[in-house]
C-alpha cells in the first residue's frame, strides 16, 4: 500500500502533467483551483484522473470544501 506521502506526490505529478503546469510549481498546501486555474468541468476531469489512477471511487461530495492537495490526498488515501 502507498504511503500518504507517495499518494500526495503522485497527485501533484498527475495534476501537473494533466494541466500542463511545471511540477516544481505545485506544493502540498497549494489551492489547486488557483494553482491549476481550473473551472468546475476541469475539476471533474481531475477527479476522474485521480479515480482512474488510484483505482478508487471518490464521491463528489467528499471533495466539497477541499481545495488543497494535501487534504485531497488524505481523502484518496482513506480509500486505498
Amino acid at each position, binding site marked *: 500500500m502507498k504511503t500518504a506521502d507517495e499518494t500526495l506526490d503522485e497527485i501533484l505529478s498527475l495534476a501537473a502533467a494533466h494541466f500542463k503546469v511545471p511540477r516544481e510549481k505545485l506544493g502540498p498546501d497549494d489551492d489547486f483551483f488557483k494553482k491549476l486555474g481550473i473551472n*468546475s468541468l476541469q475539476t*471533474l476531469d481531475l*477527479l476522474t*484522473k485521480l*479515480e*482512474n489512477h488510484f483505482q478508487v471511487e471518490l*464521491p*463528489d*461530495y467528499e*471533495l466539497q470544501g477541499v481545495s488543497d492537495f494535501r487534504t485531497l490526498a488524505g481523502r484518496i488515501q482513506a480509500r486505498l
Partner: protein
Amino acid sequence: MHEGKTGASLIERVRQEERAMSWTLVEGVIELALHRSPCNELGTASLAELEKFAAVLESLQTEAHALIIYSEMKPGFCAGADLRELYQRSQSMEKADAAKGVRDFLERIHLVLTLIDSTPLTTIAAVHGVTFGGGFELALACDLIIADKMARFCFPELRLGLIPGFGGIPRLKRDLGNAVVRDLLLTGRSINATRAQQVGLVSQVVGEGEALRAARATAMQLGKFDRATASAAKSFIKPIPHEELRREIDLFCQLFARPAVQAGLRKFVESTDALPYLP
C-alpha cells in the same frame, strides 16, 4: 445540405455550423454529432433541432442499420438541460405559463427520446466527459453506451428540488438494479466510466478520445446482421416504460411548481462553486 459519392457509399451530410447538431448517413450508419457550446445544453433551440432530426430519422432508418450519437465538444457528451434558459424563461413568465411551458417542453423531448429509444436501428451513445442530467438521459435512450474512460455520469437534479425529467429514472430502472438507481438519484453523485461499466450501464470503456472510433467499429459489426432479426431482438428485450415515463412528467411538473425550485435554479445560475451541481 449536400450529397456526394465516396466509393460505393452514399454520403448525406447536413452541417449547420451555427446549429446545435448535425447528422450524416455513411454506409448504413447515421451519426448525430452534438456541437453546441459549451457542452450541448438542451434548451428550446436544441429541442427544435432534435425534433428535426427525429423526423429525418424516420425516413433515413430504411437505409441504415445503426445510429451513433456523439459530441464534438471538448467538455463532454452533454451537460443536460439548459438551466440558465429554464431559469430566465420561468422568471419572465406568469407562474401558470411557466408551468405549461415546462410540461410542453418535457412532452416534446419525451417524444424524441422515445423515438430514439424505439427506432428499429441499433443505437449507440459514444460518450466522453460530462454526461449529466438530460445528457445522461439521452445516452440512456440508446441501446449501447460506449464510454471514454474520462466520462462521468450524474443525475444532479435533486439539488434543484427536481427529479430527472427526460425519462431518466424509468430508463435507468429498466437497465439497472434499483439500488444503483437510488444511489445515483438520491446522492446526486457522479460516477466514472469504470464504475458505470461495473454496474452494467456501459458496454465498453475505451481510452481517451476513442469512444467514437469504438462506436464506429461496433456499428460496422452490427451491419453484418439481418435487420429484421436485430430489430425484433431489440423490441423483445427493450420495452418502452410508457406508464412510468408519463408519471415522471407529472411528478416533475408537480415539483417544478414549488418555490424551492426557483431558488435552486437561481442558486445554480449564480453559483461560482467548483462543483455547482452539488447542493
